[in-house]
């Protein structure tokens, strides 16, 4: 075939366009192609899985370290049904379970608990790691894990460190205001131009602490399992 023939537009790409291909050949083509594609995908999946899981783990580790202000170590608790337990039932996939990370300082005193919570922000789910002390309801901090807020405005809840820094030591439930009263432990100042995103962060924190505090307190009363 000459180059000119090869490029005639509109010409069917098959080498034998007028012959009807038997059905078994079509099936065989797709079956072989599907099997080969499947094998390739599975191979690369197995090769990349450790790295992907390592990155995900590092992200969680980094966030726990940040919101609990560098704990010496932490334990993982799992939410099963309506109770928190240190030992998930056998056979359950730990990665799929909702978790709380209990951080301790070098002396073994509990600093706080970090939990992940997600609720709608300005336009998409806003996912936070929240650190708090379940006995007092005082926050240690939060970190944005995932957000799709407006760049330059709403994303300040992630990038504007002076907003994030306000939360350490505040007592839940907190309220977002335009101007904080000095010494009020329940107020944080919302970001100008990002009121909705600021309020979303506050709402997520309030709801998450309200949900987790009774669970963790019940767990504490039951003692370490």
């Amino acid at each position: 075939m000459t180059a000119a023939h090869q490029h005639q537009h509109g010409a069917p790409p098959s080498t034998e366009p007028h012959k009807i291909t038997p059905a078994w050949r079509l099936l065989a083509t797709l079956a072989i192609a599907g099997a080969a594609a499947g094998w390739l995908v599975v191979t690369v999946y197995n090769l990349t899985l450790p790295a992907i899981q390592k990155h995900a783990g590092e992200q969680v580790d980094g966030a726990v370290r940040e919101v609990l202000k560098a704990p010496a170590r932490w334990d993982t608790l799992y939410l099963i049904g309506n109770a928190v337990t240190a030992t998930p039932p056998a056979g359950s996939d730990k990665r799929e379970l909702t978790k709380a990370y209990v951080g301790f300082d070098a002396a073994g005193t509990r600093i706080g608990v970090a939990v992940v919570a997600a609720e709608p922000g300005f336009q998409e789910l806003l996912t936070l790691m929240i650190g708090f002390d379940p006995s007092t309801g005082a926050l240690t901090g939060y970190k944005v894990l995932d957000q799709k807020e407006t760049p330059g405005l709403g994303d300040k809840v992630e990038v504007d460190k002076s907003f994030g820094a306000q939360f350490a030591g505040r007592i839940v439930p907190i309220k977002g205001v335009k101007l904080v009263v000095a010494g009020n432990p329940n107020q944080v100042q919302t970001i100008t131009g990002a009121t909705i995103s600021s309020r979303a962060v506050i709402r997520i924190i309030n709801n998450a602490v309200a949900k987790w505090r009774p669970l963790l307190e019940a767990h504490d009363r039951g003692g370490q399992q």
Partner: protein
Amino acid sequence: MTAVPVAAPVSAPPSSAPALVPGAPPPATVFADVWRGIGRENPVLVQFLGMCPTMAVTNVLANGLAMGIATTFVLVGSGLFVSLFRKYIAHEVRITSYILIIATFVTLADMLLAATFPDISKALGPFIPLIVANCLLLGRAEAFAAKVPVHRAVADGFGMGMGFTLSLCLLSTIREVLGKGSILGHDLFGPRFEPWVFMMMPPGGFLTLGIALLGLAWVMELKKRRALVTA
């Protein structure tokens, strides 16, 4: 910068071939196969293919670059396999087979990106899996890779991928500089710079592309007039 894709040297078609008209056979050297995608048949600036990722991920240079490289990987890989099996893929099931090949490479690109650059993978979100729906891929498989030997299909995939990557880099550089005051995250103008947030949002993509196309059309027009004058 818009002049770069235009000025791309394209080797002259064989003398026997008719003058350049839409649908004319492209020149047959590997070099020309590569350059065609970067210049005269640039996927974004000339063919208007793959507009969705072009608008969606060109807010910062790192994202545009990653999307371009991932798409190039899929273009080269699918071009290779489509061309390699072009004699065995029956006419009736060719689209299914091409999509299967493309989808496989997209899945590989997605997993490899997540394993190597997790932050960029997160920023691009669903747009890497969506490469499979980029009409540039099926278009090159059906219109080119299925009709030519392997080396030409690979050269074409690479050229188209580079053309796509360069276009995305052009747009995302403009948008990142204006919308964030930075390049690849490195601050350019200091803290006094007030970023033009508009450029980071989807309308900024449309505006930037529109202006890039305007500049390209202007350069083409100038070239045409100069050719008329010299003739």
